[in-house]
């Protein structure tokens, strides 16, 4: 290879000035290891270009140095180390940035407003839900109170009626005693004029499921059905009209009652 011709072809200058193609660059870098003349020619031209630049140096404005100092002391992106040749096609510093800055401010402000309003909406929605729940609770509470109130009113009316009835002198009162000697299990009222019968439950045990108390009137030694005790009746319960009776008995029968009493299941008895 004619090294002198190669050196005088302009390839060295082209390489130093960064105008050689990738293949040419690789070729020069390979040959400079083999031929010291090439290395010398590269150094010679590099130094010449450097000297021209040095001789023609123009002092930049002093603030540039300060700007650089500030910039490099900031945290730098790690991704910045790339080969330098023809690499920075993207970042060009000439951007009309006052305009983009304004837009950035507007965008930032609207994002902040949006976030703030989202939070407010969320807060208000929660408040709304809480209030709705509280309101529903109050409504149902009011309903319960109303129902209770009605119930007490009804009970009070029943007791008032019972009191009037008991005060009536034409009313025969029959205390029902249990066979086992327990007193005052119930009281039967029998109106001698109207022949109406009422029962007041005082101390009867709760019937088992499928069972119900039944009242019987003893007429000429025979039991006559006087009606079933309604478990929902809490005060004085009206029974059947019985024209004539010597005694009353309460038995525990199957739910709905029987035609004839189960005499083994007599709970309480009482004679007039």
């Amino acid at each position, binding site marked *: 290879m004619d090294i002198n011709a190669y050196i*005088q*072809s*302009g*390839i*060295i*200058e*082209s390489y*130093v*000035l*960064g*105008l050689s193609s990738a293949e040419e660059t690789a070729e020069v*870098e390979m040959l400079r290891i083999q031929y010291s003349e090439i290395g010398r020619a*590269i*150094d010679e*031209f*590099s*130094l*010449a*270009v*450097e000297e*021209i*630049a*040095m*001789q*023609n*140096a*123009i*002092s*930049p*404005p002093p603030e*540039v*140095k300060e*700007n*650089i100092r500030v*910039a*490099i002391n900031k945290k*730098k992106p790690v991704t*910045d*180390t*790339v*080969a*330098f*040749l*023809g*690499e*920075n*096609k993207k970042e*060009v*510093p*000439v*951007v*009309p940035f006052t305009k983009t800055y304004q837009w950035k401010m507007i965008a930032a402000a609207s994002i902040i407003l949006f976030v703030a309003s989202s939070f407010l909406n969320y807060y208000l929605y929660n408040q709304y839900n809480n209030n709705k729940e509280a309101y529903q609770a109050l409504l149902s509470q009011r309903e319960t109170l109303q129902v209770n109130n009605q119930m007490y009113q009804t009970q009070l009316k029943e007791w008032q009626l019972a009191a009037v009835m008991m005060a009536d002198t034409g009313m025969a009162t029959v205390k029902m005693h249990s066979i086992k000697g327990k007193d005052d299990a119930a009281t039967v009222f029998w109106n001698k004029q109207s022949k109406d019968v009422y029962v007041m439950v005082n101390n009867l045990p709760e019937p088992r499921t499928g069972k119900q108390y039944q009242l019987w009137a003893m007429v000429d030694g025979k039991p006559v059905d006087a009606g079933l005790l309604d478990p929902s009746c809490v005060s004085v319960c009206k029974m059947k009209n019985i024209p004539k009776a010597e005694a009353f008995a309460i038995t525990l029968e199957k739910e709905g009652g029987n035609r004839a009493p189960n005499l083994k299941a007599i709970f309480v008895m009482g004679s007039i």
Partner: protein
Amino acid sequence: MNTGNIYQESELVLLLKQRHEHAFNYLYDHYSGSLYSVIVSIVPDRELANDLLQEVFIKIWRQIESYDNAKGRLFTWMLNVARNASIDAVRSKNFQQSQQNRELTENVYDEGGSIQTNTDKIGLRKIVHKLKDEYKVLVELSYFEGYTQDEISKMLKIPLGTVKTRLRTALFQLKQVIKA
């Protein structure tokens, strides 16, 4: 060749790679003027040139790892960083638009917005202007304006091979002029 300088340069590079700030200060004080002249020889707008000088030194600081002193002198590397940044700026759309606007303004009022440099009278570019026209235009377009040889071939309607050999000759001529 001054071996003392080469040793100093490799020491400087080592300190820069270790992120010594005083080494960077030395680098700036020593080379900012010459690199600024390189930028200014390509970018006429002084404000843009200032921004570019800043960009170039930040690049040098951040990319010093990628500099390999076996491949060439530190200044040659920095010069290429400066030239690439300048050409990118000049060839960017924004710059070309602002230049058009400036020319229009100048036609009417005969004054520009910021200080403009006559790039032809700076450093290496001034020397290039001593070349014959047919050589000068090729160095101008490729080195100072950053056109590829393919683009130049189309622009000047000269075959690509001719552009290649003529540019090589032009650069060798340039070396002779510098030596003289």
